[in-house]
């Protein structure tokens, strides 16, 4: 191990998307020496950078805030928490104003001369965030996927190890505290910008003892042209959907009719035309989301008059709300020294069981990032210099330390195929029913057992193998939770339990690696109190 790059810092941030960059900036400003490691490139990694997002930016007026909090209680299955929503609204307000004032983000100006701060263009936002991170003195490690966490003898998290894939060298960061901000899991569906999101952080957190919550809320699928990666489901509010023979697909819609699209796609192609967009809408759409038009312009399609085929791309827990269980106000997990922020954390606290897609997830990312960064800096200071020198062990198991004879280095490819077969299909993950979930989970369990025994690769393939293992773990938590919640609530719809069951008005924890368990969560100060 002589060629391993050895580094140390007060705080290590894993992930350089919105949550990770906010965490890095706030940790550095709190006095910490910070390293940020990104699987790809901090500034382009993840779905925010390549897209655009609304932001839950609501003026600090009682009526406006109340309305904002009320608007999604029912959709979220009454699992959100008022205290958390208030805190996120406050922090998001501050962060967006900081982005305007310090970051000089070029917000558009409305007719009243005031900046409109309710949305962000991804490339611009993340380019500015990278600049701010560097200015704060943070050391950025690009193309440096983290493979596993390090723990000290007490079980506290004390750093991480990974692989610098452009330098082709292993590296280790000893740290007083770690903020996991590695994103959700979209299972390599190619939904815009999500292929770095393979659930690595959830696996690493589980390996050191963290639990997850809300993993049944993982049925997010976005509309995209059939041949494309560009997802912007909201724009399909302007669409009429058709069958291949040109007849209207009755009941199909971007919202409230997406399951009709999913069902139809199981046996035939689905087409659409954005024929309800008036000329002024069309012009505004071009300004609002430039990349939405790349697939059309480059393939010679006029989306407003032509009929084009569409598909649904899995967004899993990127736009679902499940993730690592949060036990404290700053993204603390049940493991000392480990904080979570952004999509790797559960977003049920503000979204309940409904998607956090768009404005809520972006607000959560910047708020939870800011809190976790600050808190990690304070924790690291309390640990002190000792934290960087304490003796540690490597916590990674699957794909790093197989229990049996190592298999082929490209064994991960078979596992990715299992994901395609058991997790992408609409009739398994989206249109959920015990008859299909149970065998799918059994197949995933078998794959897990096999990979624990033999999956192993080194260098670049180690990253692929580890990501494959993380996706299998993620899917098993999802389906285990989905089977345990025998009702329909939020985005989790069971075809065999179509109604909401008041007796299941609780969040659901899931955990374990080889043997999984679920349990109702009791931690909540102010679960949406409206009748369940």
């Amino acid at each position, binding site marked *: 191990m002589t060629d391993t790059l050895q580094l140390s810092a007060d705080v290590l941030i894993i992930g350089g998307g919105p949550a990770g960059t906010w965490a890095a900036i706030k940790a550095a400003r709190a006095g910490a020496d910070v390293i940020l490691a990104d*699987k790809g*490139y901090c500034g*382009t990694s993840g779905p925010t*950078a*390549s897209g655009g*997002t*609304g932001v839950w930016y609501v003026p600090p007026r009682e009526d406006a805030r109340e309305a904002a909090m009320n608007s999604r209680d029912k959709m979220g299955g009454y699992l959100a928490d008022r205290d958390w929503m208030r805190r996120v609204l406050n922090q998001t307000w501050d962060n967006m104003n900081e982005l305007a004032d310090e970051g000089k*983000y*070029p*917000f*558009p100006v409305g007719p009243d001369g005031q900046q*409109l701060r309710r*949305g962000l*263009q991804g490339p*611009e936002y993340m380019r500015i965030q990278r600049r701010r991170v560097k200015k704060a003195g943070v050391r950025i490690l*690009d193309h440096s996927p983290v493979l596993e966490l390090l723990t000290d003898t007490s079980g506290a998290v004390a750093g991480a190890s990974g692989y610098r894939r*452009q330098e082709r060298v292993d590296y280790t960061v000893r740290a007083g505290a770690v903020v996991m901000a590695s994103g959700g899991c979209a299972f390599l569906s*190619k939904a*815009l*910008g*999500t*292929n*770095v999101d393979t659930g690595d952080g959830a696996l690493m957190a589980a390996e050191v003892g963290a639990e997850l919550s809300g993993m049944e809320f993982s*049925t*997010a699928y976005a509309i995209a042209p059939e*041949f494309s*990666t560009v997802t912007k*489901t*909201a724009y399909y*509010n*302007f*669409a009429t959907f058709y069958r291949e023979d040109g007849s*209207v*697909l009755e*009941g*199909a*819609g*971007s*919202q*409230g*009719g*997406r399951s009709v699209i999913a069902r139809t796609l199981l046996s035939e192609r689905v087409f659409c035309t954005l024929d309800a*967009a008036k000329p002024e*809408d069309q012009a505004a*759409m*071009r*300004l*609002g989301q430039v*990349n939405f038009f*790349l*697939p059309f312009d*480059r393939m010679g399609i006029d989306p407003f008059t032509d009929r084009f085929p569409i598909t649904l791309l899995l967004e899993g827990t990127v736009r679902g709300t499940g993730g690592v269980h949060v036990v404290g106000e700053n993204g603390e997990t049940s493991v000392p020294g480990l904080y979570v922020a952004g999509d790797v954390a559960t977003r049920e606290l503000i979204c309940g069981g*409904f*998607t956090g*897609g*768009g*404005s809520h997830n972006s607000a959560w990312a910047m708020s939870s990032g800011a809190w976790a960064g600050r808190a990690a800096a304070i924790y690291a200071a309390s640990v002190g210099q000792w934290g960087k020198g304490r003796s540690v062990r490597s916590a990674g198991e699957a794909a790093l330390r197989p229990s049996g004879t190592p298999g082929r280095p490209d064994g991960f490819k078979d596992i990715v195929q299992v994901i395609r077969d058991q997790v992408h299909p609409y009739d398994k993950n989206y249109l959920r029913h015990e008859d299909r979930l149970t065998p799918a989970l059994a197949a995933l369990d078998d794959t897990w057992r096999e990979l624990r025994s033999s999956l192993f690769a080194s260098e670049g393939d180690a990253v692929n193998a580890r990501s494959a293992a993380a996706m299998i773990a993620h899917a098993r938590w999802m389906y285990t939770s989905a089977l345990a919640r025998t009702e329909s609530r*939020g*985005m989790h*719809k069971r075809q065999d339990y179509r109604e909401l069951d008041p007796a299941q008005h609780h969040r659901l924890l899931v955990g374990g690696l080889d043997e999984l368990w679920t349990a109702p969560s009791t931690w909540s100060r102010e679960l949406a109190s409206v009748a369940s």
Partner: protein
Amino acid sequence: MIEVVSADRCIECDKCIEVCPTNVFDRGDAGLPVIARQSDCQTCFMCEAYCPVDALFVAPTSGPLPADSPLHDEEHLVATGLLGSYRKGIGWGHGRTPGALVAIGPSLPPPRISGAPAGSSAPAKSAPLTA
């Protein structure tokens, strides 16, 4: 997927190698970036956005283009204005106005249900929306 690296335009700044989030490029022996792992391309268009000389073209298809597609052909891409069109669209590059400054999207109508009478929108019991 990434399809074109223009040898004429490329200034060998290695920016694409640096910014590609899925590490698709390697630096080739001749100094030009080469598409070393095309199957890892997630079609996110970020390399195009960051290329200072519009030397890159990402085809919008999530799989490889058919061999006879005109989108392989740099002359075609220049003639149609497609080369560099994303960077232009987001207003990156010297002398341009950042797209963010004018990014005011449409006011979205309530979701429509195909085949439902005009004016009716999604039922209250709705499927998940992901924006």
